[in-house]
């Protein structure tokens, strides 16, 4: 165990932590009257550095550090880059949209960065207690962020709801970890993978896996563990929702991939039908509920549930291709979702004076740029070709068909037809002139600043690149998928007897 090289394996997390601490300290030492906006830039720079550090990790040999608790591999790097990218865009978005006089701006940036630490760590942890700690770091930050607008009625409600249900889910996860530890005598994922195949007290392993899945599926807001999503999204500030609906989900999906493909590949016959059912349920429930929403954020909350369902379809695929498809889908989903929430932040404003679908009427005339961007991101969410959403869906259902889940693919694609109805409704409203022309003056065109412009540009570029030239990202996802496969379980009879 060489401590120096161990540090390199968590370099992005270290950088993010230092950034968060720095932001916190500077915030505390500045006089209260000084503007805190520059802290956001510090956080953004720290995140960019962390992103570079993750890319630099590509030069490290694949392996684990800190007594086999964290791993560096193409898989973890893929998700690190993705999460850092999302956090960067969310920070840039907040920079221009958080009101100048809002309290605790410094804390906001620090919390976002600390959340990123947890999410990044979650993707690289290969030991279940580290997984738990990472999950808690990211969750606690997001609980606070969800209730950031505490002088509105919905803000605290959102935070409390998220906190209560979230802790409940974490408890499930922890209980699952305990059961698995009881059954196998270890919390190291590779060892569990080897033992799980031959473990004699199968029931504990199964129960442990089921409980862990409940905890993780809650975090990705898959039905039937989705009920918190619309309320939390509605109450949280929109820049936070941009983060909340993507980055923690990406981390949780990485964990899910690790749990099912790396820890329990031997139990595929059991988790595969479970995830099949959850996928179908998520997309159907999400889409049917989204059809009836009048509030844009609630509609997108249900749409994110549906997207979790499309993503879970990839889990019906065979090992490597399934992982690659899921990873790619997360990237595509993150790009377009962050983008659309950025547009909505600008249109609705931080105080959300215009939260309903009807309020978007005539957006394309008020602000041609934001209107076209809204339609563009909606087109990507529908899955129109040459956008990231199309390839994500295509790849996900393609591996599902390949894995023999033709019915799932048909249900999924019919669902995406259903989804087109509500996305299109918003797009059409935005493209329609409001009947009384005086209204245009009441809601002036939002201004697009440098930071938020950069955020939008990044989101648009990512969505287009993933739709037109997805080759490189696909290859990265595939390389990552290859590193996730554990060596085939060896007969480990003595180890099992130890576990007894």
């Amino acid at each position: 165990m060489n401590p120096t090289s161990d540090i390199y394996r968590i370099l992005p997390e270290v950088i993010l932590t230092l950034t968060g601490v720095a932001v916190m300290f500077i915030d505390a030492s500045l006089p209260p009257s000084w503007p805190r906006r520059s802290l956001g830039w510090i956080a953004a720079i720290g995140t960019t550095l962390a992103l570079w550090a993750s890319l630099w990790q590509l030069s490290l040999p694949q392996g684990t550090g800190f007594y086999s608790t964290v791993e560096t591999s193409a898989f973890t790097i893929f998700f690190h880059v993705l999460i850092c990218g999302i956090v960067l865009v969310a920070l840039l978005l907040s920079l221009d949209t958080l009101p100048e006089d809002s309290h605790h701006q410094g804390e906001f940036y620090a919390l976002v960065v600390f959340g990123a630490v947890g999410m990044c760590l979650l993707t690289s942890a290969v030991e279940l207690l580290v997984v738990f700690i990472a999950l808690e770091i990211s969750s606690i930050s997001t609980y606070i962020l969800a209730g950031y607008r505490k002088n509105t009625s919905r803000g605290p409600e959102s935070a409390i709801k998220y906190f209560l249900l979230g802790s409940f889910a974490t408890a499930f996860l922890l209980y699952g970890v305990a059961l698995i530890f009881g059954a196998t005598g270890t919390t190291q994922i590779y060892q569990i993978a080897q033992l799980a195949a031959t473990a004699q007290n199968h029931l504990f392993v199964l129960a442990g896996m089921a409980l862990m899945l409940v905890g993780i599926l809650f975090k990705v807001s898959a039905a039937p563990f989705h009920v918190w999503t619309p309320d939390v999204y509605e109450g949280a500030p929109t820049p936070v929702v941009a983060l909340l609906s993507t980055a923690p989900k990406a981390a949780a999906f990485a964990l899910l991939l690790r749990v099912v493909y790396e820890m329990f590949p031997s139990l595929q016959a059991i988790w595969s039908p479970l995830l099949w059912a959850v996928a179908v349920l998520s997309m159907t429930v999400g889409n049917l509920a989204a059809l009836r929403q009048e509030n844009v954020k609630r509609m997108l909350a249900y749409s994110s549930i549906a997207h979790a369902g499309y993503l879970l379809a990839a889990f019906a695929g065979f090992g490597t291709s399934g992982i690659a498809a899921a990873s790619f889908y997360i990237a595509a989903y993150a790009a377009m979702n962050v983008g659309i929430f950025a547009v909505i932040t600008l249109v609705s404003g931080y105080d959300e004076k215009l939260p309903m679908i009807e309020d978007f009427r005539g957006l394309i005339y008020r602000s041609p740029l934001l209107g076209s961007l809204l339609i563009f991101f909606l087109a990507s969410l529908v899955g129109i070709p040459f956008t990231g959403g199309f390839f994500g869906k295509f790849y996900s259902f393609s591996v599902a068909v390949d894995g023999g889940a033709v019915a799932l693919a048909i249900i999924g694609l019919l669902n995406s037809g259903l989804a087109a109805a509500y996305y299109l409704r918003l797009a059409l409203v935005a493209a329609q002139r409001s009947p009384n022309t005086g209204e245009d003056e009441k809601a002036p065109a939002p201004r697009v600043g440098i930071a938020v412009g950069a955020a939008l540009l990044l989101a648009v570029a990512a969505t287009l690149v993933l739709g037109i030239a997805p080759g490189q990202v696909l290859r990265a996802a595939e390389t990552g998928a290859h590193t996730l496969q554990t060596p085939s379980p060896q007969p480990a009879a003595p180890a099992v007897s130890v576990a007894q």
Partner: protein
Amino acid sequence: MNEINNSILTLILLLPLAGAVLVALAPDRWKLPNWIALLTALATFGLTLHLPAHFDPHQTGFQYAVNLPWIDNPAINYHVGVDGLSMWLVVLAGLLAPVGVIASWNAIKVRRKVFFTLFLLQQTAMFGVFISLDLMVYYAFWELSLVPMAILIAMYGRKDGPKAALKFFLFTFIPSAPLLVAILWLYSKTGSFDFTVLQNNVMLGLIPAAPLFWVAIAFLLAFAVKVPVFPLHGWLADTFSEAPVAMAMVVAGKLGLYSMLRFHIGLFPVQARAAAPYLIALAVIGILYGACLALIQRDFWRLLAFAALSHLSLITLGIYGFTFTGSTGAVYQILNHGVVDGALFLLLGFLCDRYGTSQIGALGGVASKLPRTATLFVIAALAMIGLPMLNSFVGEFLILSSTFSGVSRGWAIAATFGVILGAAYMLWLVQRIFYGPESELTKAKPADDLHFKELAILVPLALLMLVMGLAPSFWLPTIETGIHPPQQSSADHILHMTLLPSALTNSHGEGQR
């Protein structure tokens, strides 16, 4: 020359896109968007003319083909090419682009940038559908073609655009879901999206036949909605009456019919033959049903929609009759229908624009006010009816005669009834709009007949109808190379598109006769 031949299809694909970007960037004044769109459309049309000029009718297979890798895994290639089947359709799409621009010239008064950007994007998508030989690329363009259409219907709808747009989008998007699953399933079995590879795999029986039945159904369903085939025509009338003229003239027909020929019959000949009797029945029902409904419409857009249903069903009949003559006639009729419908849409668009109504009852005696409009409309109407010497006559005759001799006399006679009804509703329409006493609306509005720009596009179209009617031999041989399977003789004039054991094919052939 080779350089041009290799890149011509890509150029045709990219030029409208470049035009769209240019329109989006240019300022919206001095009718600049209109001019850029018109020049782009004319230039694209010029490029498409390169295809027939250098097409080698003796060579089999796809010409001007380009096959470049795009994504390694899944293996998607940028594979484009045209044969006798698709080449003239590309030219037709090129021809209708300037027609569409002219039709929108005065009709689109606001937000011209949005309109022409999306219009040109739609052109790219359509060219993409006609030339793609990789199923994924094809599917991408197929889906892409829905978006500009839906947005434009929503924005420029005459009464209730958004509703019509939603109806159109859902009607055409939902059947694409099974289509994509079917394509993905084929890929999982063969590891290729390439049309020729898949065709060979299916021919050689490398794909299990039982699921192939469902795959073929999925393909057929998606195409049948787009044509539309009775009873999937629910979106058509609303779209015709709401869509801007330039979009309505391209929405129905050729994309779906071409896809049927290429990807349904072309890939799954056995399954297509099995489905043929049902489709023939539906087509004949569609011919009669469309014609009957067209007779009772009070709105000329809806009349045109049901007339289109009737005519497109006739083409479907020709395609699924599985006779060589019928298929050739069907492709020719797609071209005719495009030209005639383009002209009719243009003229009715002017009437709608000038009188502010599409109610037939509100018009009357227009001929005395607008003699040039009336003359050209009568020519187009006669062409649509299928008057000898004009283009539709050739196509309809080929389809009906081959149905009579090669498929079934009963169906042929029933279909001919539809054609007679077609004469009735078109002539009645002409009479009600252009002749008879002048209505109050006609009296009230000042006469403002077709101007130079409109004439410059309509007169060539009218001449084209005449030339296509008089000299079909200019078009038919190249079309036949696309219909005619290279390995087989056409001695029995039955369309063999399969290399399966001849016993099977023959028994089917006998059944058809």
